[in-house]
């Protein structure tokens, strides 16, 4: 059982290492992750929102729907723990 798990882990490692041959290099400023919408965020965030911290501006203003969903997720986790563990006498 453990031997089969080890073979599966080695196969997955080989597949993932083969996939990294196509990925952009570390620290490349022209990688696709850094060129579509994030230069717009970096250049416009300070004049439109008066917030020097670009990460907070993007998290709470440009992507505020995602943060609302995130807050509901952590609220649901608290409710789920409460419902699983509290017992009525």
């Amino acid at each position, binding site marked *: *059982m*453990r031997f089969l*798990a*080890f073979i*599966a*882990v080695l196969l*997955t*490692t080989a597949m*993932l*290492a083969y996939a*990294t*041959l196509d*990925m*952009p*290099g*570390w*620290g*490349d*400023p022209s*990688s696709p*992750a*850094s060129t579509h*919408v*994030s*230069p717009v*965020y*970096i*250049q416009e*965030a*300070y004049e439109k929102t008066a917030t*020097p*911290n*670009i*990460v907070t501006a*993007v*998290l709470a203003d440009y*992507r505020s729907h*995602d*943060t609302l969903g*995130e807050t509901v*997720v*952590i609220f*649901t*986790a*608290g409710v*789920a*723990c409460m419902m*699983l*563990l509290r017992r009525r006498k």
Partner: protein
Amino acid sequence: MEIMDFIISKYNYWMYIIIMMIGFYAMIAKTNLAKKVVGMNIFQTAIILFFISTASKKGATIPIIQHGHGEAADIIHAAQYMNPLPHVLMLTAIVVMVSTFGVAIALLIMIYRKYNTLEEDEILEILKIENGR
């Protein structure tokens, strides 16, 4: 040297793949349920680090605008600040990690109360005896 350039530009991905595979092995090969949950946590942490490592740029600084307290900042170039999007997405991922860990531990407490053990093969034995009856 070609091979050194190749290794230097990709070795961050290989390091995080090794940590991911350690977590993956813990999730599928251990029989104790608590060790499986810890393996899931290691896997999620490695994914978060992997994603953030794609956000860096050579010679760039953190995505907080310098000299930003006053009214007008200097001219902002996109190449002198890091990409802020992966940082934002991974904040959400960290909160999801904490939530799933909390609910998983609560489920483990309920399983321990019912079967009095946390080993996977002993629980399967008890289930087989209960179903065969």
